């Protein structure tokens, strides 16, 4: 069986085969081959023996990925077969250029522009707050504000497009 798994933007092919039709398996990841035995301990806990090294790992399913805990580290692992791509809702890394979305669930504190304004790349547009920390959302490029989709005191989440900016040739 083949899986194609993404961690932190890096997608890697994984090939799995069972050595005994059961829990004795071989994983091929890139050049590396791992011999793995496994056992499900509970809904969220797995016991893996990888090349004779025993590890307890925890796995839970999120909206578009699985969250995996290994010895104090956490990983978000995505499988495009399982979680078809949806509008990106995380960290704003993948939103359309010109769209401004908050990096975290937060509340709008101030809106510093209005529709029709010309803005410069890096100019502050909206200030949001969460957990007593304020963050200024900045213009991703020079352009004109064509739409503001929020108001002061609104609760907003990653993926919500708060401001749309149209690139304008003349402003460059």
């Amino acid at each position: 069986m083949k899986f194609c798994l993404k961690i932190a933007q890096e997608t890697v092919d994984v090939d799995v085969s069972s050595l005994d039709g059961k829990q004795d398996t071989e994983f091929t990841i890139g050049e590396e081959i791992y011999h793995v035995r496994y056992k499900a301990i509970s809904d969220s806990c797995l016991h893996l023996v990888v090349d004779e090294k025993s590890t307890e790992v925890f796995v839970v399913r999120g909206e578009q990925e699985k969250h995996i805990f290994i010895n104090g580290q956490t990983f978000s692992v995505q499988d495009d077969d399982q979680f078809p791509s949806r509008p990106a809702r995380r960290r704003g890394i993948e939103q359309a250029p010109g769209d401004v979305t908050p990096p975290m669930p937060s509340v709008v504190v101030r809106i510093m522009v209005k529709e029709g304004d010309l803005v410069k790349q890096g100019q502050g547009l909206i200030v949001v707050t969460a957990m007593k920390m304020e963050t200024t959302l900045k213009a991703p490029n020079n352009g004109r504000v064509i739409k503001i989709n929020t108001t002061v005191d609104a609760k907003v989440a990653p993926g919500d497009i708060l401001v749309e900016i149209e690139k304008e040739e003349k402003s460059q």
Partner: protein
Amino acid sequence: MFKKILIANRGEIAVRVMRTCREMDIQTVAVYSEVDAAAAHVLEADEAVLLGESEPSKSYLNIDRIIDTAEKTGADAIHPGYGFLAENPDFAENCESSGINFIGPPSHVIRDLGNKTLARTIMEKAGVPVIPGMLKATTDTALLCQEAEEMGYPVLVKAVSGGGGKGMRVVSAREEMEEACLSAMNEAKKAFGDGSLYLEKCLESPRHVEFQILADRQGNAVHLFERECSIQRRHQKIIEETPSPAMNPSLRKAMGDAAVSAVLASGYVNAGTVEFLLDRSGRFYFLEVNTRLQVEHPITEMTTGIDLVRQQLEIAAGTPLPFKQQDITRRGHAIECRIYAEDPEAGFFPSPGLVLFHQEPSGPGIRNDCGIYSGFEVPMEYDPILSKLVVTAGTREAARMRMIRALESYVILGIRTTIPFLIDVLKSPEFAKGDTYTDFIERHFDNWSQNMEASNLARIAYIVDELTASTKPSAGLKERGCPTPWETLGEWRM
């Protein structure tokens, strides 16, 4: 002793206070905001009363509503925890005038010590060394610039009613001074309603060393040794330990005596903390007094064996301190790590949201003061602190290794936390050596990102989770003889 105490706080500190109350056979009243209806402190209390909307000003900062709740539930005392109203002199005064025991110092002491320049004056009179700086605050930018010039850069611009790094700026050159003053003034005005600023000389990478003190109503005061809290981010402590790696017996004696003098000079009653900066030559300077239970109080509890909340309640009830300075001993080493809902790979952005899975570390010498559980939705309205993981062991090195083990087995999934970052800090040679200064994080961990060594293991775990999905309890009671995942998944994964 009190019969019933209202805890005017939330999360881990409210839970921690309630535990001592229960051990003293005192009833507890939790207060909560709308978003906190299922918060840990609500589940822990004997009674729970809704204060109002989630916004702090409508709930945990709503003085009238809280005092009214205490009266209605028949609580004879209020414990403020830390943060929120803990250092608000108006709140303490309101309690006093309503005949409710405020578990903390008298309101006038909170007021005096909350004024940073007045506090400096009190300390100077009592012979406690203070950092060279202004004794009067001002909103006059020109005056501030002139003082900075005389003092010599770098200087620290501080709000007279500041706290938590708000209204504070380090200014290293003349040309940045005016703008720094204006923005600090703005911030302070917004946060504390008072934009007045003053200056202090800026020490070069000092250590933050503080002393826990207890003072009773009979005029007795003792210290419970120091805590070093130099590992900070944006003036927020993230790792604390005791003893301080920088301390020696004569310095400890000098600083402890200064802390007790500070307390006596200000008329202090109840538990408090005297904060100092310690420079590389071993000179120390008064920074401020925190007039409340400190976030990092557990490391003092674990090394001295004294329950600080119990002492707070006893003092507030009028009991004299049960020990003198020479009776207080300390044993071993303790470290605390604050577990925040923040993404350490993304500039420590807050990371509120649903905790999908939570499993605490356990074992000898581990304590976790915690405000979350599996299924809890961490609200975005409050501080990002989730829990405080504390360990104690015989030596600093044993405590460091124990903390690493504890962090490595602390499972929180669903939201980002500072755990992987903390592990790397604990493992760093600089921390292991005790080279801990307030610039530690920016110097050694400026652009931290998580080690990806285990990413193939994570991929394996992902797939094993698929392979075992049908065998798990949540899959329900399946018929025997169901096909293996190799049969069911194999078809479409070629």
